[in-house]
């Protein structure tokens, strides 16, 4: 009896699907969970920083916030204080801090790459390859796929993918993944933090 070749669609957690749409739906749910975790972690990190704030008044305010000790009628003064500061002491105005945190969350595709660590990258349905960030150098990966060799470089700000002929793909970030288009070929680039490494 001869073996036969089959096609499966693999999500980033290695789950296999026979149906592409089912795989995509599952992957989207994984991405949603990953995004929410990232956002919550970013928020919690911000609050932790505020608890260590050099301004004693602000630190106390955030301690009460975390303890859920701010009553609803203190809610408006809280936002006035952290987003507007006070008339006499505008250094308490934390608009820039909040905007920085929100930018980090909104531009999460960039932040994922900014994060130190080790990532598994894959081009299309190609095999996953381990990429390690080296200081400020971009992640770099060359992989063969569909009879062509592609080189992917990921750095803060986005992806750059070239083929062996030196052509640069046009990349767009949609739904937590990069779609890279070469003349007649479209590739989807996925990545995830490599667990346990």
């Amino acid at each position, binding site marked *: 009896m001869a073996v036969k070749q089959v096609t499966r669609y693999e999500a980033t957690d290695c789950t296999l699907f026979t149906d592409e749409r089912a795989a995509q739906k599952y992957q989207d749910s994984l991405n949603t969970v990953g995004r929410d975790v990232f*956002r919550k972690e970013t*928020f919690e990190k911000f609050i932790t920083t505020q608890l260590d704030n050099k301004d004693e008044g602000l630190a106390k305010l955030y301690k009460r916030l975390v303890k859920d000790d701010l009553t*609803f009628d203190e*809610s408006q003064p809280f*936002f006035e204080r952290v987003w*507007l500061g*006070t008339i006499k002491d505008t250094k308490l105005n934390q*608009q820039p801090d909040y*905007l920085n945190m929100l930018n980090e*969350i909104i531009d999460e595709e960039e932040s994922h790459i900014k994060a130190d660590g080790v990532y598994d990258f894959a081009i299309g349905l190609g095999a996953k390859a381990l990429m390690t960030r080296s200081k400020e150098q971009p992640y770099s990966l060359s992989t063969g796929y569909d009879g062509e060799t592609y080189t992917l470089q990921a750095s803060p700000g986005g992806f750059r993918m070239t083929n062996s002929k030196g052509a640069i793909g046009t990349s767009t970030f949609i739904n937590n993944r990069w779609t890279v288009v070469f003349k007649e070929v479209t590739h989807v680039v996925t990545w995830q933090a490599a667990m346990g490494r």
Partner: protein
Amino acid sequence: MAENDGNGKIEKVGLWETDDGTLFTTQSAATAYEEALINDRKQAQIFNDGKKAMLVNSKSLVSVNPSYAAVSGDFFERGGVYSSLESMIVDTPEETKKLIQSINGRRKI
């Protein structure tokens, strides 16, 4: 003040008065105080404009995420400020960014 021996006379003195009626013996002190007053008024105006934008725009976002009601203190649970803030940041970060930017009049929601 000299001791009054019963023959005291009034003396005409030159003073410097600021907008709010405060008197100073020197012009420089009065001017410094006046400048501080003007600066305070400007700061108060900035604060009030920002506050108004923050409240109006947060109310318009309640239909997107009920947590924005906390910004105007217009919600009815005890506490919950932390979870409201978390929801604004985690669930609707784009809207929250626009809201904070609107405080400085940079962008209307």
